[in-house]
């Protein structure tokens, strides 16, 4: 990259790097902070000036850093005449604003923050004018919206600031988003996002069918940013920002970003009818309307804001004309407007600062009290009015000249007449600014004692006023920069000569009419003002606020209505979607021919099926009675187990029966603490609707099952059956699949079980800390309780059963690899045996005899399973690779030892631990519900009474 290119990148980055400084340097004091803010800006300006001679000669300085080539986004910058003009304006005015703000901001305002935002904005703005890639430009574009949001809302305690910030962000943000679309289309037409490429592809763009959409979308961004009608309304409200911000962002730089972009895109987009009618018309309307409203604004800043709107309209109109001379005029007016408008804003700020009011109706006569301010304000205002020898006059003449020979539709009069009218209004409000604020008698009712501010505050506007006069008197001094910028805009070599006297032209007459008319309007201001106030006008802010409020209210209604927390509805929607999409997917193709015959139905199976159906329907009908429903669910579970047996799946049947038993027992215990009846929550219509949905879903699942049960398919199970014994060392394929082929799945599932135990435990604690605990305590359960909670018979029977159950469990565990059984079922069987002890003898009694904590049991289970898996690493095999061997230990017969059994032990422990932890949690709830803890195994122990009787005698 060339030396100049490097400088360019540094210029673009400097403000962002500099933005880090003021936030820190504020600790060194306000003046130091201002100095340190000025440094990056000044450096950038100096570097620009170093590059300036080359650019003025017509060179274009380029620099490129790769960023995201996949998207066509690169950090590429270029500096031509137009970029140079804007960059100098941004940094130059930036310096003046930094100086001005140092004195403007009060001691209570966080100045470091202000300068940080300001530099962020400056960086974004510089980025816009230097970008050579439209995606990069978009990034900076949005950044100006954001930094402007922060700056408008700077006085965050003021509602106007907050609302103005939001309004500005909404409007410019919306425009920015439209512009994203426009730029992407533009890039698509050209095949590149590089500005240099796009600017050379003007003909291709204008010929494209996508030209109009792209143009409109881009112009939406431009018009919102540059406050063109009908998006102008945000700008006056942005004036809630501190005045340095208004002067910098909302008159000198940011609002000109739109104008800049039109100028930048001029070779690519301008010159068509669509361009002319959209851009020039919008500009014309904005110019006249802005000036008219400005005339009747009493707030100084509002007056200036609408005047800015009007001048932006003027610039837009000029660019819309699409002629080279108009482009020159636009470029020149950009410079002139910058000088006088920034000075005027600072003047308004000074007046506000000193007089504590910006209301024109409360001002007047300040000429005597604030002579320096008066001088500055008057010079700038005369320039704004377009009085000869001030720079505003020159560019306004050029504008009127262009307007005088512009044809709109078929009329030669529309544009010149309206342009003259706009100029006339502009004269009127400029004169009003001078006469109503400075002239007239000194009043005695200012809110404060106005006097001239310290030099630091008037120095910046004074400097700008010097420029106003210098350019006004010797316009040829601006020849060079205007030539460079205008050539860059039009893409043609232009050589404009700026001069004061053009001879007696139509423009001169229009100017004279404007000045005289303006004076007349000023004289008539009082009656006109009354009429204006009496006329009903649409109030943009009220409309905007109402719009936003109603949109928010609508959004709120939609959200509340859709996300109302009704789980039954969510599930209904889910089910309907599944059935509907399933049906659509199904109907898009067909089925293969069935390969199986329907089997005859034996009578026993038919009975079982009827029982299953009856039980299921009964659950639906009786689910309000929870105990009954639970019993019925138990029946369903057992029927399904029977089905598994019939279909030769003993493993499944065994698992199903034990799972069923455990869950029903735990649910019974849990139901104890819950209402016994479910209240009816849905209306008949809803039940009908849900019934239809449920039938459709059930029917769908049934149809699906039928469809695939009728067809044979070659599956991977054949491999499992073939390899179970040789590879897995077991003859029970189901168990080998569980602990070996797909042992990893089982590993996951036991972890699910372990987590469930943990969650229930954590949940129980959370519940007992909350309001549920109070409810538990206050509910009277005594009525439900049996007098003899732990009857003798049951205690005795369960104790006898215990060793038998344990032996069965161990047996099931050991045979698992070859016969139906395994760790999972074994865990459940043992758990059932223990559950019975707990139920029979009470929790506390059993708990005392418990050797291992349940938490540990789960943990141990998971760790053993995992370690079994990891163990195979030692043999250089992947996780969970099994190994087995046959051992012969006399006198026992030869038996098998497999690592899979160790894994199964992990499964066993986890299952047992999880079930018991659930039981433990239930008993905790029981105790907190006021259940007494039994010390002995039986509430009524006959043995004790025998002892008592003996002792008594």
């Amino acid at each position, binding site marked *: 990259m060339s030396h100049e290119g490097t400088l360019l990148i540094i210029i673009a980055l400097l403000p962002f790097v500099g933005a880090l400084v003021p936030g820190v340097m504020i600790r060194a004091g306000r003046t130091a902070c201002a100095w340190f803010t000025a440094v990056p800006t000044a450096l950038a300006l100096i570097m620009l000036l170093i590059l300036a001679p080359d650019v003025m000669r017509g060179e274009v300085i380029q620099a490129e850093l790769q960023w995201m*080539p996949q998207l066509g986004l690169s950090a590429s910058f270029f500096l031509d005449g137009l970029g140079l003009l804007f960059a100098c304006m941004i940094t130059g005015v930036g310096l003046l604003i930094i100086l001005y703000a140092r004195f403007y901001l009060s001691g209570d305002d966080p100045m470091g*923050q202000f300068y940080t935002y300001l530099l962020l904005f400056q960086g974004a703005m510089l980025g816009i004018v230097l970008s050579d890639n439209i*995606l990069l430009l978009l990034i900076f574009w949005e950044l100006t919206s954001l930094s402007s949001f922060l700056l408008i809302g700077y006085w965050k305690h003021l509602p106007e600031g907050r609302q103005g910030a939001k309004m500005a962000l909404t409007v410019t943000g*919306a425009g920015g988003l439209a512009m994203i679309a426009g730029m992407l289309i533009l890039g698509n037409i050209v095949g590149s996002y590089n500005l240099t490429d796009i600017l050379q592809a003007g003909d291709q763009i204008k010929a494209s069918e996508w030209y109009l959409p792209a143009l409109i979308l881009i112009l939406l961004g431009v018009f919102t940013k540059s406050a063109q009608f009908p998006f102008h309304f945000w700008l006056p409200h942005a004036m809630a920002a501190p005045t340095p911000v208004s002067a910098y962002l909302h008159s000198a730089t940011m609002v000109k970003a739109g104008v800049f972009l039109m100028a930048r895109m001029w070779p690519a987009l301008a010159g068509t009818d669509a361009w002319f009618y959209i851009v020039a018309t919008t500009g014309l309307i904005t110019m006249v309307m802005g000036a008219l409203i400005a005339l009747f604004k009493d707030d100084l800043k509002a007056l200036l804001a609408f005047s800015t709107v009007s001048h932006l309209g003027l610039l837009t109109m000029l660019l819309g004309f699409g002629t080279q001379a108009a482009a020159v005029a636009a470029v020149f007016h950009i410079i002139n407007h910058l000088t006088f408008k920034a000075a005027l804003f600072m003047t308004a700020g000074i007046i506000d600062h000193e007089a504590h009011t910006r209301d024109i109706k409360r001002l007047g006569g300040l000429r005597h009290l604030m002579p320096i301010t008066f001088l500055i304000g008057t010079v700038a205002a005369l320039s704004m009015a377009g009085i000869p020898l001030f720079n505003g006059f020159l560019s306004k003449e050029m504008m009127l000249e262009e307007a005088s020979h512009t044809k709109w539709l078929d009329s030669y009069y529309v544009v010149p007449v309206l342009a003259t009218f706009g100029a006339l209004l502009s004269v009127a409000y400029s004169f009003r600014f001078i006469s109503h604020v400075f002239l007239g008698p000194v009043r005695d009712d200012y809110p404060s004692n106005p006097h001239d501010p310290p030099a630091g505050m008037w120095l910046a506007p004074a400097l700008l006023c010097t420029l106003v006069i210098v350019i006004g008197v010797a316009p040829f001094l601006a020849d060079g920069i205007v030539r460079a910028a205008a050539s860059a805009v039009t893409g043609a070599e232009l050589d404009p000569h700026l001069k004061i006297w053009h001879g007696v032209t139509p423009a001169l007459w229009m100017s004279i009419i404007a000045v005289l008319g303006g004076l007349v309007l000023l004289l008539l201001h009082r009656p006109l003002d009354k009429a204006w106030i009496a006329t009903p006008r649409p109030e943009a802010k009220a409309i905007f606020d109402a719009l936003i409020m109603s949109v928010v209210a609508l959004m709120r209604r939609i959200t509340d209505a859709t996300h109302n927390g009704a789980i039954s509805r969510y599930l209904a929607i889910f089910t309907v979607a599944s059935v509907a999409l399933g049906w659509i997917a199904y109907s898009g193709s067909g089925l293969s021919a069935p390969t199986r015959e329907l089997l005859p139905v034996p009578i026993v199976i038919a009975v079982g099926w009827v029982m299953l159906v009856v039980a299921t329907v009964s659950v639906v009908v009786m689910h309000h009675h929870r105990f009954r429903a639970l019993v019925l669910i138990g029946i369903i579970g057992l029927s399904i187990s029977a089905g598994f047996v019939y279909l030769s799946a003993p493993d499944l049947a065994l698992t199903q029966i034990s799972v069923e038993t455990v869950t029903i027992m735990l649910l019974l215990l849990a139901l104890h603490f819950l209402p016994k009846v479910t209240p009816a929550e849905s209306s008949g219509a809803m039940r009908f609707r849900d019934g239809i949905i449920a039938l459709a879903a059930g029917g769908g699942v049934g149809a699906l099952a039928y469809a695939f049960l009728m067809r044979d398919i070659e599956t*991977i199970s054949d491999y499992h059956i073939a390899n179970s014994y040789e590879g897995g060392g077991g003859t029970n394929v189901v168990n080998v699949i569980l602990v070996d082929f797909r042992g990893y799945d089982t590993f996951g599932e036991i972890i699910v079980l372990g987590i469930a135990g943990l969650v229930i435990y954590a949940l129980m604690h959370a519940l007992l800390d909350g309001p549920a605990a109070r409810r538990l305590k206050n509910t009277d359960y005594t009525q439900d309780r049996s007098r003899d909670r732990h009857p003798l018979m049951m205690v005795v029977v369960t104790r006898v059963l215990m060793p038998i159950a344990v032996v069965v469990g161990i047996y099931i565990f050991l045979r698992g690899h070859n016969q139906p059984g395994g760790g999972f079922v074994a865990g459940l069987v043992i758990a059932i045996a223990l559950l019975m002890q707990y139920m029979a003898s009470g929790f506390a009694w059993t708990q005392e005899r418990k050797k291992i904590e349940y938490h540990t049991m789960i943990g141990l289970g998971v760790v053993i399973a995992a370690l079994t898996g990891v163990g195979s690493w030692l043999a250089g095999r992947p996780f969970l690779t099994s190994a087995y061997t046959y051992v012969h230990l006399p006198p026992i017969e030869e038996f098998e030892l497999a690592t899979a059994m160790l894994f199964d032990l992990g499964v066993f422990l986890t299952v047992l631990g999880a079930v018991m932890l659930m039981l433990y949690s239930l008993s905790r709830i029981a105790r907190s519900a006021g259940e007494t803890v039994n010390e002995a195994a039986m509430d009524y122990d006959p043995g004790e009474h025998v002892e008592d009787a003996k002792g008594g005698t």
Partner: protein
Amino acid sequence: MHWIILPVVLPAMVAPLIGFVMRWDITLARSASVATTILLVGISIGLAVMASGGETFLYKLGNWPAPFGIVLVLDRLSALMVLLTTVLALIVLIHAIATGWDNRGRHFHALFQFQLMGICGAFLTGDVFNLFVFFEVLLIASYGLMIHSGGKDRMRAGLQYVVMNLAGSTLFLFALGTLYASTGTLNIADLAERIPQIPPEEAALVRVAAILLMIVFAVKAALFPVQFWLPATYANAPAPVAALFAIMTKVGAYAILRVHTTAFGPGIPGTEGLAGTWLFPAAIVTIAIGAIGVLGARRLMPLIGFSVVGSMGTLLVAVAAFSPTATSAALYYMVHSTFAAACLFLIADLVVSRRSADRLIPEPATVQNGLFAALFFAAAIAMAGMPPLSGFLGKLLVLDAMREPGVMGWAWSAILIGSLLTILGFARAGSTLFWKSTAMTPEADNSGLEDVAPPNHATALQVAPSMLALAVLAALAAFAGPVSAYLEDTSAQLFDRDGYVAAVLEQPEEG
């Protein structure tokens, strides 16, 4: 070679130890949890480096050959997702510890590690049934985390979460049953080989399976019309958990990408275009729901929740195209939106914990109002897709990839208008929380002489995770070039179905 399974086995071993051995000492549990997570980050970086060469690595569990046993498959995509998960987890974990959230209920760290195990397992598996298993693991663990520390609203939202997702799991089983019955296999590579052999006129069953699986994944990804559970869940979950959940929606998106690209994807006559046809309109509506919810929100946490819904919509719009370009855009957006969402929840937690509630009404400014405002601003512009953070680039990438006629109009308007509403919603919320609050004076302190409680300043450790997440977003933007180059390769590898099948099914026997 065992590296691939470590992201599953390591937390699976540590979690029980934390839950059962260290459960009485929070410091011990914290140390173990943090150490494990740091190790996981290291491992996942290693895996990402391994995968970056473009090779697809296979891990045959139990040493059974695919498709008969279960395999783990490490390619660029799964490595990326695991890396994303672990980095996010570390950030969230630090926040949870620094703010003391982990100590407000039982078993946080055990559940957290189990959750990581579930997520990593889902990303690494090459088998759809195993995917189901890990969906279960992460569901049950996330439910435990979701209701961590209890409370009425949280319990209620948790119930909705778990019920909706259990319904999804049930459907998952139906879908798997149908899939197995129509193809005879569950291995993704094997599916990719067998499904194209099904004659297109006899593909009804496998089509049903494909669409049902899409709905299952859509439940996880919070896609319309099964997104209803998300806002309430995220809003009521403990904030660090909500931040971790930012990756959970991505599990759904990942599953759609993996399964519907490889097994049912482009070029397969029976199922081609089926998922995309329905995914696209659903994603568009999802964007709308998210944006509407953001603007209409009354509370901060649901607002962020809805912005997550909207971001999932944007992500899935790109996924629905099932093309390599759109997919790499989707992946970039996925990485971005994960960190953006997490970051927002963490920052919101810092703010909300210092206010009476998360309702969007003015209250006196909290301490460090400026700091929180700045953090919130940065995270919000990231989420809303404004520059300079990665959200803007992600949005541009997605827009740029959506150029098909008939798609462009819908996608562009939805994304751009959605962005506007989101920006507006965040601006309103931020203005109320951080600006309006400065105009309020704290209620008069009656205590007079002594301050009741010192202002609850956020410690450096509490702010660091949010800053870290923002730094990730900034880095994602700054290094967008190399990152998207990697993602382009990732997406190319995902669409190279033959390469995947060859790597999984024709792996030479290892010694």
